[in-house]
């Protein structure tokens, strides 16, 4: 499923990386611990987190993630937006909780079938 379809399905707001939405998303990973994401997230997955500071961009780039969904209606720091823009990394916002977003993404991706 493409990132574009997921954005529509989950009603996400696109902050940066808008010309990079044809990426095929394979999976999701939900965590607020950066080392955990470094250790366990798979390439081309969408990262669901409430972290908003600039270090999330480096983690996403190092792990070749498809993008980041920031939950709970939180706003990314200015530095985070700038860095994500430079790297053309999709930074997406949801008003829902990490639990809700994860559950809906899990269903959308047809996991657990």
């Amino acid at each position, binding site marked *: 499923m493409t990132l574009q379809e997921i954005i529509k399905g989950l009603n996400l707001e696109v902050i940066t990386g808008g010309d990079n939405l044809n990426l095929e998303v394979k999976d999701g990973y939900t965590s607020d611990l950066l080392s955990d994401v470094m250790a366990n997230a798979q390439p081309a997955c969408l990262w669901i987190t409430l972290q908003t500071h600039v270090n999330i961009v480096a983690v996403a780039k*190092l792990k070749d993630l498809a993008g980041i969904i920031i939950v709970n209606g939180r706003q990314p720091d200015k530095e985070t937006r700038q860095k994500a823009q430079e790297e053309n990394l999709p930074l997406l916002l949801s008003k829902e909780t990490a639990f809700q977003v994860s559950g809906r993404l899990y269903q959308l991706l047809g996991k657990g079938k």
Partner: protein
Amino acid sequence: MNRHDEFIQTFTILGRDFSRAGSVSTEIKEILQEIGVPSSIIRRVAIASYEAEMNVVMYAQKGELTLTLNPETIKIEVEDEGQGIEDIELAMQEGYSTATEEMREMGFGAGMGLPNIKKNAHIFIITSSPGVGTYLKMIFYLDEERAA
């Protein structure tokens, strides 16, 4: 690269510079991609170098990371001037961390840094002098079968 060639590059990492944290690891990843290192090895190096870089940012005044490439191996050494580690065995335990509350709120301090390095480097050596600094050496074999 021919057999006798070695590529060496040194990077400076500044302590407490959270806004640029991860940039050295990102640069290393780009170098490895450019020279066509297999992605499975790049993934290992990215995890280990990121954790080593973050340790300097969090616990040292400054550090130097040296990347050495030859046709068989990728070597990364990190030497910092900082608080050092009192008990390396304890620091190697998953879940153990001395991160501050502020660092934890940012999602650091999971106590996974050194364990992540150990899991991903084929060879990992660490020495430390409390109050002076820490030295890490990690080696990755380009031929994973040989490493196993």
